[in-house]
């Protein structure tokens, strides 16, 4: 029979963590190299979160889950450690190269979503997860920094470089279409 403490923990888990399942699935995917890896990471993170509920103060469940996922990912294998901690991995666009600076091209083109999805997939996880947390999950820079245990300046720099890379990818598509027509 469950003790009153266990019942209380289960209620807190149900109230604070269970609603975040879609968030956990998305963030795990952004930290992983494949869908299968993301599935494992999400499950392991949830299990750890459940076991650590007594140490969770209840504030910022998204940031808390993201931190557990991040620590789980970098502890799983060396490859994740390198990718999640590395500052490398993005080739900076050359000065003066096209950077997707036409807002209409970004919002109107029908196949942009597919290009963007592919470009996001190609970002190193260290960068992709910052974009995910800030642009999709609406975390502040400070919350993202806390979740990933990196300085705010690193969040800003990764976000800036990732966005530049995404803009470049979108711009390439736009230019290709112009060349064909």
């Amino acid at each position, binding site marked *: 029979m*469950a003790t009153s403490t*266990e019942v209380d923990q*289960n209620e807190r*888990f*149900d109230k604070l*963590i*269970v609603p975040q*399942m*879609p*968030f*956990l*699935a*998305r963030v*795990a*995917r*952004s930290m992983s190299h494949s*869908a299968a890896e*993301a*599935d494992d990471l*999400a*499950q392991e993170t*949830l*299990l750890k979160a*459940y*076991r650590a509920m007594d140490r969770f103060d209840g504030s910022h469940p998204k940031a808390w889950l993201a931190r557990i996922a991040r620590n789980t990912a970098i502890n799983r294998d060396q490859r994740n450690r390198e990718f999640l901690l590395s500052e490398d991995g993005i080739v900076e666009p050359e000065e003066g190269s096209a950077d*997707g*600076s*036409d*807002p209409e091209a*970004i*919002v109107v083109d029908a196949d*942009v*979503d597919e290009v*963007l*999805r592919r470009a*996001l997939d190609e970002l190193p996880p260290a960068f992709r997860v910052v*974009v*995910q947390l*800030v*642009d*999709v999950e609406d975390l*502040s*820079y400070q919350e993202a920094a806390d979740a990933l245990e990196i300085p705010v300046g690193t969040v*800003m720099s990764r*976000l*800036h470089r990732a*966005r530049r890379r*995404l*803009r470049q990818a*979108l711009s390439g598509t736009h230019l290709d279409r112009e060349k064909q027509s």
Partner: protein
Amino acid sequence: MRIPGTSAWKRRRFGRLCVEVAVHIDEIVDGELPATRKAKLLEKHMTGCNSCRDEAEVVRALKRGIARVAQEADPEVVERLHKLARRLCSGESHDV
């Protein structure tokens, strides 16, 4: 020497502010630029500068696009997480 208030002074100052906006464009669009005198200056500049407004709109459009394509969670993964949560809460945590 440039004399404050002349058109040459205004052009030069305007150009410098464009550079400042470019440096801080992510923070501006994300609402993360601390509310300082400089932030107010850049905000004021952007109301009168088409180029800076366009740059901000590009970043906003990119954010909207990212949110659109990355908002979807894999429903199978979510379902498996819900199943695991139910098992954990029903006391099966020691078997996992």
